[in-house]
């Protein structure tokens, strides 16, 4: 056996035993690349994900809700920060990752390409989008790459708080005036299918899955996770007195799961490929923030350099 093959085997043995891989450990190049891709895309999703909810901060209906929403969006920025740091341990800079986002080379979760059209969307997003994210992220707390797994542990705690907060917004609306209830139902109608799409393509069409399973990036398939999401959400919607917009949704006694209808895969691929309702707006907002911030970042850098120079002269 060549030394490379030995290393790979030892590496895989460690993963199989459930050991964590740390940044300084030897790893196959493909493992490094895959993690850079996945963690940076996850980071981008947190940051782009600030925009749809940020859209309602200035219009929040009460001071209490405004504070909660501000804090939530700020948490997402914090998640972005941990994740960029985790990816940086693999030898890529935050600036490079941001470049990749802006050039379109790196993706982010398609869910954030849908517009937020009413206050109830803050509820629906917390309940369904954070809810779907948690299902994915709880699995990732046990992923093989140490910094990623640890970031997930921290993030999951905050995400479940977000989900409860979102569900509580829905609860108040659903038990409010007819107008409020209608607002809540409309938000559920618009966010249900995009949330279902968050788990990605059907298993038979998912390209990265086999390697991801081997490296324990994934422990459950897209379809298994999606099923878990449906099974969680149906009783929650029933409790709210709202209707999930899927006529095929039905309890299947034999499977012990809910059966559900087909996702519109044309829409899924259309949004992934950049042609969703807000892809352009989201990218423009990120690009503008970055471009308009350049002189600020440059000033901070220049000032830090001057400071360290004057210090070394003083010494």
């Amino acid at each position: 056996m060549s030394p490379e093959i030995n290393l790979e085997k030892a590496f895989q043995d460690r993963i199989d035993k459930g050991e964590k891989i740390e940044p300084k450990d030897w790893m196959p190049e493909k493992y490094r690349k895959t993690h850079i891709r996945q963690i940076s895309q996850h980071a981008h999703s947190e940051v782009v994900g600030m925009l749809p909810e940020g859209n309602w901060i200035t219009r929040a209906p009460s001071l209490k809700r405004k504070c909660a929403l501000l804090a939530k969006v700020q948490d997402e920025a914090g998640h972005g920060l941990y994740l960029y740091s985790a990816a940086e341990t693999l030898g890529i800079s935050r600036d490079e990752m941001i470049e990749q986002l802006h050039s379109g080379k790196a993706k982010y979760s398609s869910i954030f390409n849908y517009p937020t059209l009413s206050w109830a969307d803050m509820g629906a997003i917390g309940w369904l989008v954070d809810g779907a994210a948690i299902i994915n992220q709880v699995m990732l707390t046990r992923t093989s790459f140490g910094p990623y797994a640890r970031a997930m542990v921290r993030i999951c705690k905050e995400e479940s708080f977000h989900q409860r907060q979102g569900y509580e917004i829905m609860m108040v609306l659903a038990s409010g005036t007819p107008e409020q209830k209608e607002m809540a139902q409309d938000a559920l109608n618009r966010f249900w299918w995009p949330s279902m799409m968050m788990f990605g393509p059907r298993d038979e069409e998912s390209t990265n899955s086999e390697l991801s399973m081997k490296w324990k990036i994934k422990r459950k398939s897209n379809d298994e996770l999606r099923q878990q999401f449906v099974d969680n959400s149906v009783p929650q919607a029933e409790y709210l007195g709202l209707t999930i917009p899927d006529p095929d949704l039905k309890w299947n006694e034999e499977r012990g799961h809910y059966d559900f209808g087909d996702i519109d895969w044309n829409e899924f691929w259309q949004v992934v490929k950049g042609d969703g309702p807000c892809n352009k707006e989201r990218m423009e907002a990120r690009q503008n923030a970055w471009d308009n911030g350049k002189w600020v970042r440059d000033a901070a850098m220049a000032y830090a350099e001057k400071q360290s120079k004057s210090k070394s002269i003083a010494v």
Partner: protein
Amino acid sequence: MEKNENLIHYLLMLGDNSMILGHRLSELCGHGPNLETDIALTNISLDFFGQVRSYFQYAAQLKGEDFNEDKIAFLRNERQYYNATLLEQENNDFAYVIVRQFLFDAFHKELLEQLMNSKDTTIAAIATKSIKECRYHLRFSSEWLKRLGNGTEESHQKAQLALNDLYVYCHELFAESEVERKMKESGIGADLDAIKHNYLAIIHQLIAEAQLKIPETIQRVAKGKLGFHSEKLGYILTELQYMQRAYPDMQW
């Protein structure tokens, strides 16, 4: 009764300052020059809204009957908001954000230090809690002022431009209104004259450290805190009040 009316009016002045600046900062959430600054500005905004809630809960309690913090925050007309005009100025660029913040933080710190000794124990308690936040805000804004002033040619110019535009609004902070005079005399409110000296000393020193120039003073004194605002406030209120106006009397 008259005493309460003045006190309520004074609480609105304090709360409106925090609310309108908090609102401006909240507009930036998700759009900062980098994640760290985005998080810091959101934090400051959150601190301000926390203060708003304390002031308005107290005001609502004094007003009694069917008042609450949200009714006070969202259901007044433009002329019934009493924030200083400085705070409604727009986020033209990051330099405006920092200069506006700095000019207010330095004032706010002096103000809160006085209010900590207010005869009104609720105001004193709110000030005691807020002063810690305020000291952090002032550190943040003055550090950034120095960075921008001493950073690059471009940042220096932008900071100077913002200072030229915003400095004029400082006069208003010290132009004592009728209500402020009465509150001072009853030992509840701050003595703005006493604050002014320290304030000017602090900002002049930091402006010098940032290598910026104090603009020529213009004599006009803005009157936002008397309810005569710039045209910008109306648009802030349009967003701020949207839900409460469109869906009156509902729980959220």
